């Protein structure tokens, strides 16, 4: 299906979506590198190994913490913050800027992994300043969807 996110594109996709992401790596269920972005070819293998180790350490730390198994992790260190999110099939780890908003990064991680697993594609809202696609008439305004993304879906599907 056109527009479906592939594992090979996922790391890059995340960095495109989030301005505060500097690098990303995607691992499959076996812990093998599926894609990476932001560290070049030479750094990919090490970043993947570190992402694997990150969740191993999370699972060790989790033994002392009440609650369900951790799905996401946020580790803030000098110079940046590392975020990780996993599903039974995929693990996505991201190195973000120190100023990144954790809630947004974690939400984007879930959204991108959801998209990879066949969920709805993430759509970016259109800027208010963007030129209108047709003449501004009352009829056109009446036919507009209050949720622009839904309206666009309908147009694309037609």
């Amino acid at each position: 299906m056109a527009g479906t996110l592939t594992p090979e594109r996922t790391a890059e996709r995340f960095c495109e979506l989030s301005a505060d992401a500097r690098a990303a790596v995607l691992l499959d269920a076996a812990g093998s590198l599926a894609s990476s972005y932001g560290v070049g070819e030479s750094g990919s293998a090490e970043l993947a190994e570190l992402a694997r180790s990150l969740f191993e350490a999370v699972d060790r730390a989790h033994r002392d913490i009440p609650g369900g198994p951790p799905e996401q992790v946020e580790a803030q260190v000098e110079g940046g913050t590392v975020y990780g999110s996993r599903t039974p099939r995929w693990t996505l780890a991201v190195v973000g800027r120190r100023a990144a908003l954790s809630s947004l990064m974690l939400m984007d991680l879930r959204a991108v992994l959801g998209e990879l697993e066949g969920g709805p594609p993430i759509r970016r809202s259109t800027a208010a300043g963007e030129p209108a696609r047709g003449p501004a008439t009352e009829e056109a305004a009446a036919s507009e969807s209050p949720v622009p993304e839904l309206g666009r879906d309908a147009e694309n599907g037609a």
Partner: protein
Amino acid sequence: MKERRRGPIGRAAGLAEGLAATVRRMQREREPRVLVYDETGYARLVQPDGRGYERLLEIAGRMVELVDEAEAV
């Protein structure tokens, strides 16, 4: 409630309090920390004396270094 009018010393003290709070907040934000989230999004702080805390920070630190190195090339 009506705010009590403050003189120049009171205003200066208020500014200093605000500045001190900002510095404290910035220091707190710079401190290393690790949080884990379960599937519902509930966050739990990994305690500095907890198992795996040092290792998590070590791994995260190396990941940041790796990106710094890649960006410097």
